[in-house]
């Protein structure tokens, strides 16, 4: 895949390894872990979009014979992962639950990242005073136990999905804010930012063209890690009765409900937990891959990784 060219230019001979730019899907195919992660996330996206329409009825259908049914095929294919205390299909509930779970967590994390990232850039690049105000606000939010904050806010407002997302997003925002600000403070001292300033660029130009592209992959990585903890916080709030309420289904809620039966029916909490773990893991793997693929200095790791094995 690599060719060595020696071409003299204006009295200058040079030997530079030229790598043909590969389309992203080829790079993805080369990294099998990332590939599996991408497939899994696609499946989840599929569940998210059409799950409730497809299996909404099955997920609420009671089957008293399958109460706390052991995983297996005795009660039909839908009960392959077992049944819940009311005999509803665990598999169907997991698929239907994907929409609530992922959309709540994803929206919350996305809002936290956008707000935190923007405020962090402002705090890092604009004047001292603005920065101080923003950072002290972040201190206030962080010094509050996040669960307590959520409880207070959700008791005062209604425990609706929208409010839940806002509360979850608020408690996560300071992390993005701090990371972004720290990175901005470091990047703004780099020489290429000075070079851009000397060319006459304004703050917005520098933030958009030089700082944001470097901060974004870091935020993306935090986001994937955060994804899991937001799903779990959501289940905690649901458990306290101020989050998403049954009969709505979320994975976190399923874990919470399943905990009571851990001794008799471990699968009730185990499979939703596994779903949360796999979703997070896939997002994490894919984000590391994305981080490499978007970094021109690191991209070769993906390109040559497989090739060396082929050569042997």
């Amino acid at each position, binding site marked *: 895949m690599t060719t060595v060219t020696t071409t003299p230019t204006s*009295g*200058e*001979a*040079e*030997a530079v*390894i030229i790598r043909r730019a590969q389309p992203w899907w080829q790079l993805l195919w080369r990294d099998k872990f990332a590939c599996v992660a991408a497939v899994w996330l696609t499946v989840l996206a599929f569940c998210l979009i059409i799950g409730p329409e497809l299996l909404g009825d099955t997920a609420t259908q009671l089957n008293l014979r399958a109460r706390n049914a052991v995983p297996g095929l005795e009660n039909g294919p839908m009960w392959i992962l077992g049944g819940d205390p009311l005999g509803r299909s665990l598999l169907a509930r997991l698929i239907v639950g994907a929409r609530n779970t992922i959309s709540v967590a994803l929206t919350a994390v996305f809002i936290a990242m956008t707000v935190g990232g923007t405020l962090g850039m402002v705090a890092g690049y604009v004047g001292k005073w603005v920065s101080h105000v923003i950072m002290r606000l972040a201190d206030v939010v962080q010094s509050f136990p996040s669960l307590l904050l959520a409880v207070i806010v959700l008791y005062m407002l209604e425990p609706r999905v929208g409010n839940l997302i806002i509360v979850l997003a608020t408690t996560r925002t300071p992390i993005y804010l701090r990371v972004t600000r720290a990175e901005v403070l470091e990047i703004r001292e780099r020489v290429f930012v000075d070079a851009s300033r000397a060319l006459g660029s304004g703050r917005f130009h520098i933030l958009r063209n030089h700082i944001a592209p470097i901060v974004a992959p870091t935020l993306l990585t935090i986001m994937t890690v955060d994804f899991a903890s937001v799903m779990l916080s959501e289940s905690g709030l649901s458990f306290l009765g101020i989050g998403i309420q049954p009969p709505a289904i979320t994975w976190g809620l399923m874990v919470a409900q399943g905990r009571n039966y851990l001794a008799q029916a471990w699968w009730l909490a185990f499979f939703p937990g596994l779903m949360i773990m796999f979703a997070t893991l896939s997002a994490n793997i894919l984000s590391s891959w994305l981080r490499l693929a978007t970094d021109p200095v690191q991209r*070769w*790791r993906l390109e*040559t990784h497989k090739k*060396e094995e082929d050569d042997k």
Partner: protein
Amino acid sequence: MADKPLLEVRDLKVEFRTGREIVKAVNGANFTAYPGKTLAILGESGSGKSVSAQTIMRLLQIPPGAITGGTAMFHGVDILKMPMDEWRQMSGKKMAMVFQDALASLNPVFTVGWQIAETFRIHGECSRSEAFDRAGALLERVGIPAARDRVKDFPHQFSGGMRQRVMIAMAVALKPDLLIADEPTTALDVTVQAQIMDLIKDISKESGMSVILITHDLGVVVDVADTVAVMYAGRVVEGGNVIDVLQQPAHPYTLALLRSAPQAREKGERLQPIVGSPPDLANLPTGCSFHPRCAFATDICRRQAPPIKSVAEGRISECHHAETVHHEPVHA
């Protein structure tokens, strides 16, 4: 050169294996240090000069580095194959090193006096107070003002030049036979650089210590060294007495370096640069590594690696056209 060599490095080869390629940092280097003399290893970044020094001092990180060949005979023993604990006994006592970055080489949480005293206590059996006394005397010797009081200071309380003096004090504490100085003045200002170079010269003269000075600066070589080894792409391409080599170079690379130096040209006169880029150590050219940038290159240079030729008494050059180059005036 009637003297017996102190350190004789033959055909040294060092590689670094990274994810995608093998970088041949040192590619068969030969050089010799004689007792009481100063040998300068001159080269640009990537020429393998620092890696050679690190390898001899057994400081090479393995992996990713690997010594793939060669010997380094010191006092009749090959130090590259010496067991590590035996080497530790010897390093410091017989051979010591000074680095470019003095601040990074000193431990920030101990006083400089403690760090020098420790050198004595590791190797010799002298008491704590005696070691401290000797540390103070050493700092005085390397020209640190109020040395007896400053033994209790920490590295960050010294200026760049003073730190380098402390490093030199530590290196010569046990009166080694050989001091390897890796770009000791590159980070310093010219006026301080002159002070440090003079100090190294003085100590060498005083105690008969040999010095291997690794540098990229032609001026420093002229100033300090007796002999010089010019490195390019991991090989010593030319060696010999400093004045002979720099007045009548026998390798096109040395010649081109001298011609490109701005000191010889006045305003308005264009410099004569070496064309092209430094070699890619993972994809070295065939034949002579310098041929893509060489004004003397012919067909044979592309096909065949040049032999080591002796062009005059004590002068070697690795070039097919060494004799022609040798008769070329430096400034046409």
